[in-house]
C-alpha cells in the first residue's frame, strides 16, 4: 500500500470545476432574462391581476347550449379531417422521398463506395427534407392563405409539406437502423430496388413505421388547431374568434373539448401502437 496515499484527502477535487460551470450558467442566464423582458412581478401588478381574474372568471359559466355544441362538434370534425387529410398527403410526399433517400437501397453502394450521382441525389433529397421540416407549418399556412384564400386547403397543404419532411426523415432513420441484411442480400442477388423494399425493408420495419405515423397523426391534430389561428378554419379559428371577443365561457368550453380530443387521440394511438407492436 503506497504510503503517500495513507493520508486522507481534505478537499473534493471536483468542487472548483462545479463552481465554475454553475457560475457560468448563472452569468448566461442574465442576458436571456433581459432579452425576453422576463419580469414575473408584472403578473402580480394589481391591474394585471384584475384583468386576469376577470378573464379567468369569465370562464365560468361554461357555454354548452345546443347550438354552440353543434358548432363545436362540426369544427372538431373539421380539425380532425384537416389533420387526417394533411397526414395522408404527407405520406404521399414522404414515401417516395424516403425511397429516394435511403442508403440501404443503393445499388452502387453494394460494391463499396456509393457512386457520385446517386450520392448527390440522396444528399439533395436529404436537404429538401430538412428544408421542408425546418419551416414551421404556420409560415407555410400564412403563405398558402395568401394564395388559396382562407379555409382548410391552406391548412392541409401546410401540414402535408411540413409533416412530409418529418415523416421522411424518421422513416429514413427507422429503415436504416433496422435489420438490413435481408434487403442487401436481395439487392446482391439482382432484385430491383422496389422489390427489395417490399420484400426486405417493409416487413421488418412495418410495425414501427405505422406506429410512428399514428403518433404523427395525433400531433397533426394539435397542429391543425394552431393553424386555425391564421385562418385555416376548424376549432382553432373558433377559439381565436371567441378570444378576441373575450367570450370566456366559449373559450373554456372549446379548450375542454380540445383537451378531451387530444386525450382521446392519445388513447387511440397508444392502443393502436400496442396492437401493432
Amino acid at each position, binding site marked *: *500500500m*503506497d504510503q503517500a*496515499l*495513507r493520508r*486522507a*484527502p*481534505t*478537499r*473534493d*477535487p*471536483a*468542487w472548483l470545476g*462545479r463552481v465554475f460551470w454553475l457560475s457560468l450558467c448563472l452569468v448566461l442566464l442574465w442576458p436571456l432574462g433581459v432579452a425576453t423582458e422576463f419580469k414575473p412581478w408584472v403578473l402580480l401588478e394589481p391591474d394585471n391581476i384584475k384583468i386576469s381574474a376577470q378573464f379567468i372568471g369569465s370562464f365560468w359559466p361554461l357555454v354548452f347550449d345546443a347550438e354552440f355544441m353543434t358548432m363545436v362538434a362540426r369544427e372538431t370534425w373539421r380539425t380532425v379531417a384537416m389533420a387526417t387529410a394533411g397526414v395522408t398527403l404527407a405520406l404521399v410526399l414522404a414515401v417516395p422521398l424516403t425511397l429516394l433517400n435511403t442508403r440501404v437501397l443503393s445499388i452502387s453502394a453494394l460494391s463499396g463506395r456509393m457512386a457520385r450521382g446517386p450520392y448527390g441525389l440522396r444528399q439533395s433529397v436529404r436537404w429538401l427534407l430538412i428544408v421542408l421540416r425546418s419551416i414551421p407549418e404556420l409560415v407555410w399556412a400564412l403563405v398558402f392563405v395568401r394564395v388559396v384564400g382562407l379555409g382548410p386547403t391552406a391548412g392541409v397543404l401546410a401540414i402535408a409539406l411540413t409533416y412530409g419532411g*418529418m415523416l421522411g426523415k424518421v422513416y429514413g432513420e427507422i429503415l436504416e437502423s433496422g435489420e438490413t441484411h435481408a434487403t442487401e442480400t436481395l439487392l446482391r442477388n439482382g432484385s430491383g430496388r422496389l422489390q427489395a423494399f417490399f420484400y426486405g425493408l417493409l416487413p421488418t420495419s412495418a410495425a414501427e413505421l405505422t406506429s*410512428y405515423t399514428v*403518433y404523427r397523426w395525433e*400531433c397533426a391534430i*394539435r397542429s391543425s388547431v394552431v393553424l386555425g389561428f391564421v385562418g385555416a378554419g376548424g376549432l382553432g379559428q373558433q377559439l381565436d374568434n371567441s378570444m378576441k371577443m373575450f367570450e370566456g365561457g366559449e373559450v373554456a368550453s372549446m379548450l375542454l373539448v380540445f383537451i378531451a380530443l387530444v386525450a382521446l387521440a392519445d388513447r387511440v394511438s397508444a392502443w393502436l401502437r400496442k396492437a401493432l407492436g
Partner: protein
Amino acid sequence: MKIELLGASARHPAARPGAAPALKALSLQFRAGEQAAIIGPSGAGKTTLLQVLACAMPPTAGTLTLDGVNPWQLPRSALQRLRGGLFLAPQVPPLPPRQRVVTAVLAGRLPAMGLLASLRSLFYPSDIPAAFDALDRFDLANKLFERVDRLSGGERQRVGLARALLAPARLWLIDEPLSALDPTRSRQAMATLLAGARERGTTLVATLHQVDVALAHFPRIIGLRDGALAFDLPAAEVTRDRLARLYDQFEHELRGEMSAAVPDEAPTPQPVVMHCR
C-alpha cells in the same frame, strides 16, 4: 440488535401471488453482536430470509421481533427510525453508475443525517476522511473520487461493503459478499467485515456460497434448504456428512464450480421517445 424469528413464512420478492413460499415456518434467534453465516443451495430462500430480517417485506405468517419489538406493528415513523438501525447489502451492489464513490459510500450514513446536511453532502461530501478510512479498509482508498461505473465488478462489490462501515446500524445483513472477489480479496473483505462488526458490536448475518470461507470465519453456521432450517450449529460441529446432505443434488455448488459471478445489470432498454418534432 437481538433478532427473533418465530415460524415465519415468506414469498420470494419477485414471486407471483400464488407461488409456493420461499420460507416455510422458519424459527431463528440471534443474540446481539452475534456473527452467523447462512449457507445452502440456490433457491433455498437465503435472500428471502435476509429481506424478511431487513423488514423489506412482511412475513406472510409468523412474527419477527427486533430488540423485543415487532416492526410491522409500529407506526410508520417509528418503523423508519428502526430501519435506520438496519443495513442490507444486496448481491448486486446498489450503486448509481454515474455517482462518485465518495458520495455512494457516504450515502450509507443518510439515516443519521438531517435533510439539509444530506443535500449539502451531495454538492460537497461532508466527511471525506471517514469515507477514505472505510475504503482504505477494503484497499480502495485510491478510488475515492472515481465514478462507480469506471470500477470493476469486484471493486464495486467492495464499495457496497464499505458502506456498512459508515452506516449507523446495529444489524448488518450481507447477501453474497464475495461473489465477485478473488481469494485474496475475499479473505481481506471477510476479515474487515468481521473486525468491523466486532468493534461496533453489531449483529452480522451473511449468506455465503463459499462454504469453506464460512466455516473458517464464522462461529455459527445456519443451513437452509427449500425454505426450511436444515441445521443451526457452531462451525466446529458442521461435518462433511451434513454438508453433503444439505447440498444434495447441488454438489457442484458445494465444490465451488458454480459460476457465482455477480450478474451484470442488464442495461434497461431505453423507452422509445416520441416527440412532436
